[in-house]
């Protein structure tokens, strides 16, 4: 597998593992780990949007945050942003790099400081990082707000005066104001109603074109991912089970989990017969994942080797990776 630092790739994630200790007892010793992310490897090309899908608790958000080094440390693996290892940076260098990679949160209500006017929320970091000069500052904030569909007079208002969609626009404006190259969109639309979702998605698309942005779009809404993404990654229990260009993933899902997941996309045509693959059981605990392939407890194509040996990521067709024993070369 090729993971050379290529200028094509803005982000290279290699075998990222993020385990959270479970503490217990009086002396709070570690009794185990929640393996929220347990080996994620992918590369993301500049200007692309990668959709990251999976059910709740599979580690999508943890992956997104680990990439931005919002955790103090990761268990193992590496994250290369523009060829630089994010976790090898000093605090000072990291701060300098922060504006280049931004995040938009799922909950637009808790992600805005309630006691700060909107203009200040958007502009605070701009001033700290000296993105623009003092003279240009006001115009710059106005432009950013205008680009995100906000009026200049919103500047003096407080977050509680805005609706969910407007708050999400503020979050986008805050991320965008730092002139980033890469934005992690952590389920930015799942808290919004459908009409607003469309507005926000379109806004994100417009901004991507305008500012040449790269997105990591985390969502569990497959239709949104299909709309916005260039590449799609499917996660199951901390593992990236399948990863490839959107067209290939949607037209030719390889992993049994992907197949089951995609069979659940509702088709807006009552005549089409749905071939739903119903998964048995529920998702195992990430604190105590099954041995071998993590999906084998629910997999319809489970083989003997799946229960013992952990599968490795293989490139089945150019750019299309899958982690499954079904595609082992015999």
């Amino acid at each position, binding site marked *: 597998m090729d993971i050379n630092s290529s200028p094509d790739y803005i982000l290279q994630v290699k075998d990222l593992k993020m385990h959270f200790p479970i503490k217990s007892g009086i002396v709070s010793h570690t009794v185990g780990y929640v393996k929220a992310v347990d080996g994620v490897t992918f590369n993301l090309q500049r200007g692309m949007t990668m959709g990251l899908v999976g059910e709740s608790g599979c580690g999508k958000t943890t992956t997104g945050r680990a990439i931005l080094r919002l955790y103090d440390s990761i268990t193992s693996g590496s994250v290369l942003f523009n060829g630089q290892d994010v976790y090898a940076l000093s605090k000072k260098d990291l701060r300098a790099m922060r504006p280049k*990679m931004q995040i938009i949160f799922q909950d637009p209500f808790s992600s805005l400081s309630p006691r700060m006017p909107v203009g200040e929320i958007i502009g605070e970091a701009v001033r700290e990082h000296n993105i623009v000069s003092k003279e240009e500052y006001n115009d710059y904030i106005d432009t950013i707000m205008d680009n995100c569909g906000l009026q200049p007079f919103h500047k003096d208002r407080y977050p509680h005066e805005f609706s969910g969609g407007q708050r999400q626009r503020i979050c986008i404006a805050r991320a965008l104001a730092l002139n980033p190259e890469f934005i992690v969109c952590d389920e930015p639309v799942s808290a919004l109603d459908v009409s607003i979702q469309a507005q926000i998605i379109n806004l994100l698309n417009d901004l991507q074109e305008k500012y040449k942005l790269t997105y990591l779009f985390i969502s569990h809404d497959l239709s949104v991912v299909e709309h916005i993404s260039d590449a799609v990654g499917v996660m199951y229990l901390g593992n990236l089970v399948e990863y490839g260009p959107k067209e290939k993933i949607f037209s030719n899902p390889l992993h049994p989990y992907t197949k089951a997941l995609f069979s659940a996309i509702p088709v807006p045509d009552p005549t089409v017969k749905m071939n739903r693959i119903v998964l048995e059981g529920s998702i195992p605990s990430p604190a105590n994942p099954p041995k071998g392939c993590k999906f084998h407890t629910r997999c319809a194509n489970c083989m003997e080797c799946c229960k013992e040996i952990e599968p490795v990521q293989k490139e089945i067709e150019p750019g299309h990776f899958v982690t499954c024993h079904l595609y082992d070369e015999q």
Partner: protein
Amino acid sequence: MDENKNINTPETEEQKYSLNDDRRVKVLSPGALVMKRFWRNRLAVVGMSVLIFMFLFSFAGGIISPYGQNQFFYKDVEISREFAAVTENDEFRYRASDSTDKFGSAVQAQAMLAIQTKKGDFTYRDTAYTVSEEGENFYSIYSGGELVGIAYKDIVSSSVEGQKLSFDFIYSALKAYTSDTSKGDSSFSSEGAEYIISDLGYISDTSGNEVAYISRYVVQAIMGDVFLSRDFKEKLIETIMAGGTEFSYTDESLIITEDEEPVPEEEDEANILATDDVSEAEAPVSATAEYTIRPNQNHKGWSIRQQQSSRQYDTYSSPNKAHWLGTDRYGMDMLTRLMYGGRVSLLIGFIVVIIETLLGVIMGGISGYFGGWVDNLIMRLVDIFYCIPSMPIIIILGAAMDAQRVDPSVRMVYLMLILGILGWAGIARLVRGQILSLREQEFMTATEASGLSVKSRIFKHLIPNVIPQLIVNCTMSLGGVIITEATLSFLGLGVKFPFASWGNIINDVNNTHVLTTYWFIWIPAGTLLLLTVLAFNLVGDGLRDAFDPRMNR
């Protein structure tokens, strides 16, 4: 939008129904919202008005008040008392000669009889006595040619106190005095010395020193501790002889210099618990007094009343025009004391709370933000501070400061520091809890993702979100601090004279007599204290409700 414009160019349909933000009602900032909600709370507004009144009363009142914080007031009291009695001696007194024992009381009675019957001689127990009139109301009694005694009405007293006059001296003096009918000096000799008697009865030796005087009048002081000087007696007798009824006399020994103004002594420790401390500080008795002379009913004497005007501390005076709330036990204006007391009480409250809050925010902030072992250390420190029994400590420190005779103003600073240092733990815990919960909020993650500095993360994101709770907590604890200060001052361990505080004003009431008689000493101070603490609590409650966005009142 301008109204005229609306009439001329009606709004388009789109404009009319647009939900554009600029057409919405002006929405308020969180601070303005809190204010709005606060003003809707009637009790809180009442509390706020009470507080404003208290501040004006304490801080402006002290300036307006014509009196000083520790200005004493005096009153002039006319003391009228029985001072002395004068009797004219109209009975014979007897004196036996130094060398004889033949002049016992029975002989005296016989002599008296003989004098009254104007018999020249009498016999008693086979002894013959001869009575001869030597002058006016002066008789000498002889027995066998020997002078055994004298009977007289004019009394000879020595000018030197305690000195006994010899028989011979008295005899010679009386003889010269009574036999001399012409007004003027006469002279006599006794025991080899020459003496001169003035017309008023003063006896002086040849060198002019007065040794004795003769007078029909006896002047006695009614009060045992008063010594009547000769000057006084002289003046008194003169007035009586002239038929006057009034005179004034200045006792030079009582005049003291003006600058020796006594200040009530600072109470020492023993007085804190002693309730029998009712000694009223008295201003000096003025030296000049008026005396009135009134004849007794039997017309045989006069009684002298002293009318002395004395300046006393105007203690416990009831409310009147000059002192609207009366005066306290030192004679200071109660209302002014209350104003200055309020100043001290409020100031101590505020400074203590500021110290508490500063310490609490810094410690709690560090603890909550950095977590880990720092958090552990600070929280254990907080636990220790919670375990400290603050009252005993403050009382011990107060007693220690008494022993060290710490200056009252320095003492006040110490008091604030001690209260502040003992009180930060609660606030630290509150701030830490708030910061811990805030740290998990997504907007804090967002500040991390934006690469903001630690400083701006703490001061622009964390602290503003803690401030509401902090304000509520501070307002509430202000009342508590004021109460603590009042308690300490009441016990005599807090604010000390000359500074007033509501607590040490109430401290004046340390016995039932004052409690029942002088309501104006403790009711106003107690009421102010109650109102202030109540108002702080009401405002605190109001603020808490106002800061809570779920309260829709």
